């Protein structure tokens, strides 16, 4: 009898190890709704201002740190990153208008058109890391079941880029906290299928947004690990978030230029 109990326990344990993602699978529409909920949770449907701290560690190089202000407007997807520290980068900035990303360097006084997939300030972060989440618009999700990630129960899903949308990472794997729908972990893959970047979002915070008439959630800290150059990593800290309306003429080249004068 006891041997039967042992064998049953062992079978159950083996089954648990072999099939860790045994929770009920989500249907495709449920998964899309789930992904939309992930986006909605982070949207504020209005203006956004935050301060970010970026730290880049690269093998064989001196660590680089930046402080910058991020401004964005949901209505027309306008976006600004204005560097405030270090002194050498003060006044440099990115401006996204009409789906074009521009970079301004006050030392040369020139605007350069950059690709949307630009590495911000040479770090391993992209513009999309600071922008509103649009995962459901850009990707089709596939269910990978549930897993335990520390104390969290995470819904795992593979997102594949929708046709005719230009994306930096054509495939993403997400671990989303089932309870809060906050993204916990994210793996981004190249077209070749190679894992390029893993990020961990922690210290999720909320702020009341008047324009949304509800809470907007954002990760207080994001850590990006380069999976090709293993020693490289980037830390982003988001602080001083404000959702009050911004000046109407803020998202212009003239405004960004004026900040370096």
């Amino acid at each position, binding site marked *: 009898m006891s041997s039967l109990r042992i064998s049953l326990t062992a079978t159950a344990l083996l089954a648990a190890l072999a099939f860790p993602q045994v929770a009920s699978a989500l249907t495709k529409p449920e998964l899309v709704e789930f992904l939309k909920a992930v986006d909605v949770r982070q949207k504020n449907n209005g203006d956004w201002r935050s301060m970010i701290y970026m730290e880049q560690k690269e093998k064989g190089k001196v660590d680089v740190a930046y402080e910058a202000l991020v401004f964005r407007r949901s209505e027309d997807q306008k976006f600004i990153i204005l560097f405030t520290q270090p002194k050498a980068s003060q006044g440099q900035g990115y401006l996204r208008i009409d789906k074009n990303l521009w970079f301004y360097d006050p030392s040369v006084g020139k605007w*350069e058109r950059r690709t949307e997939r630009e590495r911000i300030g040479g770090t391993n972060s992209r513009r999309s890391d600071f922008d509103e989440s649009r995962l459901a618009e850009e990707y089709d999700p596939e269910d990978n079941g549930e897993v335990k990630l520390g104390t969290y129960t995470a819904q795992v899903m593979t997102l594949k880029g929708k046709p005719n949308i230009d*994306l930096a990472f054509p495939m993403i794997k997400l671990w989303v906290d089932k309870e809060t729908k906050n993204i916990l972990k994210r793996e981004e893959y*190249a077209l070749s299928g*190679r894992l390029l970047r893993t990020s961990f979002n922690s210290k999720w915070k909320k702020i009341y947004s008047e324009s949304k008439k509800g809470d907007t959630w954002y990760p207080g800290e994001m850590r990006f690990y380069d999976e090709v*150059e293993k020693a490289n990593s980037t830390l982003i800290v988001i602080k001083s978030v404000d959702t009050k309306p911004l000046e109407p003429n803020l998202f212009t080249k003239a405004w960004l230029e004026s900040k370096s004068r």
Partner: protein
Amino acid sequence: MANFFLDFRIALRSLFQHRRRAIFLVSAIALVTGLLVLLNALSTGISETMIRAATTLSSGHVNVGGFFKVTSSQCGPVVTEYEKVVKVVEQNVPELAHWVHRGRGWAKVISDSGSTQAGVTGIDITNEPDFKRVVSVVSGNIDDLTQPNTMLIFESQVERLKVKVGDAVTLSAQTNRGAANTVDCRIVAIAKDMGLMSKFGTFVPIETTRSLYQLRPDTTGAIQLYLKPRYVADAAAIAARLRTTLEHAGYRVMDPDANPFWMKFQTVNREDWTGQKLDVTTWEDEVSFLTWTLKVLSVLKLVLLTILIAIVVTGIMNTMWIAIRERTREIGTLRAIGMQRWGVLRMFLFESFQMGIIGTAAGAVGGSIVASLVNLAEIKVPLSVQLFLMSDQLHLAVHVSSLVSAAVMITVITTLAALYPAYRAASLPPVSAMSHFG
């Protein structure tokens, strides 16, 4: 005519008579000619090395490259349906000797121990005998570039990546639509450095560049045209003609811009157009960021030459003045026994001419010998100089034409320098000349 030869003989004897002065002047002329020959050899050597490296690594004599813009803010160095473009070229460029096509790109090359940003050139090694001849492989086998996902790198990149033949590296880049992509490559050959251009250049099979940038098989980065040797100097004119021809054939062609393709991304990104535009360049355009060394060298050569010639002219004129003063009684005697003013003038000019001929001949021979010794010694140059010489050693190129032109120029200047003193000598009245003491 007899007088002519007589004057020539008198001038020659006079040189032997005053051999100390003549030896001094001939030596000065030889030194100046030798320096001129060496300066010419240096600038010609750099120029030849530059052409050879440029036309091996990144350019033909004329190139048909271009950009394809998926959206107005995203461009890639791509020529679509390149075989159709080649047909137009073949029909309209009779000066063409042969052509090759290369993939163009820029990627991060990552090894287990390091990484570097590098140009990634796609190459069909089976059709590039010149490339195999010029690139000096120090390790591995260049023919292995026929295998997919292989790579040739240069010695200086080995230091940064800490790799050897057989090791794997990852190429990481964005496709022309902005998606991240990677390709794993095996290093099959390590080549000797070829100056600045090899610091940031790697070569992979063209299929690898297509795979990395997700391009169709009928695309390439640039069509490199190699001209028959006698037309190489006409590359700019042929490029201009080809621009018009391609426009007439229905292609959109970019305005001439004497810069390498990788310096045009910003300009092209700023422009609001999509689709394909071709860009016709010459090898000089593609290495325009380096040709300033040649310009600096030319200016330096001109300045040095002016100083040296000024010294020689002053020396010749002074010596002639002294000779005339010393030989005033001789001039008077020659005039008294029937030598005409022209004869005196000719005699002094001949003296100068003879010194010029002997001095320049000695200088040309001496300069050539020194240049040959320098080449034989295979003198290594510092890294900073290598970047601009496009070679790890000093190469001096001496051509007969440059020797002859240097000798003729210095001889003419030397002869002309004696013109005024000779004229003054010829103008002396015989009586006062004969009674001159001193």
